[in-house]
């Protein structure tokens, strides 16, 4: 009897945990409003293209690369040391300094604009 209850409990707990995981994943994806503005599209690219894996958004400390908070409020870009302008960020994406991989083939020209628009909001 106790073993039967144990089996049932295990099955129910497993089902609830898996259902919660599935529901949470669907909820999170579906709850996000469609990206409309350039910066919203850039925010989506920031996640989809994996920038998030190496750069903190809300602080300046290094993760793998430098944190990007207030990137355009700084005088210079953290890796290249060049002035913090849209053109230099675009250049960093295509021909990066330091260990950062090139996004020349992974982002279109328009996508780079969107990403820069997003970085300006940080």
């Amino acid at each position, binding site marked *: *009897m106790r*073993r039967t209850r144990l089996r049932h409990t*295990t099955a129910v*707990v497993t089902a609830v*945990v898996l259902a*919660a995981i599935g529901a949470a994943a669907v909820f*999170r994806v579906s709850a996000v409003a469609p990206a409309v503005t350039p910066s919203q599209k850039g925010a989506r690219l920031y996640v989809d293209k994996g920038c*998030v894996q190496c750069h903190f958004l809300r602080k300046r400390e290094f993760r793998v690369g430098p944190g990007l908070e207030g990137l355009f409020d700084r005088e210079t870009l953290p890796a290249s040391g060049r002035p913090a302008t849209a053109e230099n960020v675009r250049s960093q994406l295509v021909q990066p300094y330091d260990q950062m991989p090139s996004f020349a083939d992974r982002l279109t020209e328009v996508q780079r604009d969107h990403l820069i628009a997003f970085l300006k909001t940080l």
Partner: protein
Amino acid sequence: MIPGLVRIVAYVLLAVGPVVLAALLGLMPRSVVYELGRFCALAGFALLALQFLLAARIRWIERPFGFDILIRFHRHMAILATALIVAHPLLLAAGGAGTDLLLGLDQPWAVWLGKAALVLLLLNVLLSVFQRRVALDFEHWRLLHDILGPLVLVGAAVHAWAWGQDLRLFPLQVTWIIVTAVALGTYVVHRFVRPWWLAGRPYRVSAVRPEADGVWTIEFTPPEGLPPLDYLPGQFHFVTFFRGRELPVEEHHWTISSSPTTDHLASTIKAVGDFTSTIGETRVGDTAAVHGPFGRYSYVLHPEERDLVFVAGGIGITPLMSMLRHMRDTRDERSVRLVYANRTESSIVFRGEIDEMATGEHPRLRVTHVLSRPGDEWTGRRGHVDTSLLREICGNQPESEVFYVCGPTPLRSAVIASLHELGVPDSRIRIEIFSFLD
């Protein structure tokens, strides 16, 4: 039923709590598959942390289920947590992170730490599932389990803190700190603080009595100032002997064979392993840390049941003996039929006391001894406990009896199969699964 349900609901809420919190707080999603990977990690970590609470012998958690069932639930949840944590990197890779996450060598330290924790988790689970097959004795397995468990938890916690997207959210950071601290705190209390506290208040061995071939009863008296252990007949306790003389100091669990109606506490122990082979060397005056009682294998939890059948094999008689002694001392009028299987006449434990009890009225006891290797002079039953014997013992209505079965696994399995054959439902079969690793 209700107390158990409350605990199960609380467990589920704690297990899925981080998932719900992260989903509600919102974070830029990548894809459904990627998010599944993230949430698998959150739930897997919560389950891992809860493992420490399940195994810590916390009475409030254990009471409605019994420790044997709770420790099996702990095993089931270990499998679930491991499956979720294995799925975590696979889903992240499939959901957008790419195979570099799995195979790339150029990874940040936090990713490597996560991989290391995953490998240790798999090692821990495999050693637990295949402990006997890899010939790992219980003490060494427990030592490894005690090292690997906290290592995995700390590795996973630091990995998530340094690398997890959701851990950038302040509420989840707070949750993570609380969950990790509670799990590790529970572990420290369970493995270090409580054993130290119990060792400072040891019971004293007041009698050592041989009962049968290789079987001894050890009686304990509580330390001065402490009341006797408040247990139910049929429960068990954990005992750590401090005997000196270079005898091993290990914690083992044994059924309490005495009845709570007496002023002493006793366990009857068979010399079957490395540690128990030294049990006969225990002397009066030795001390022992006692932690208990645990378990729900007791007839007093079912006062409405009047007709009982006890089926014991070898040393499996001990919880049933505790119950019979309790019935005798409380002048209980239940009807009990005891089927007691042993190999030889000299291996029958408590034979004199059982036979004497069968002549009394409390309980109304009938005894059938069964020997598998009897001598020529044995006039009783020969062979094993099988369906025909149980049918004969129980008459025409075996399905109306309640069966307490305790003994080695082959006997237990055979008796349960026979009872099913006789139409006895699981709800009327009570068993104690004494080994935590079976």
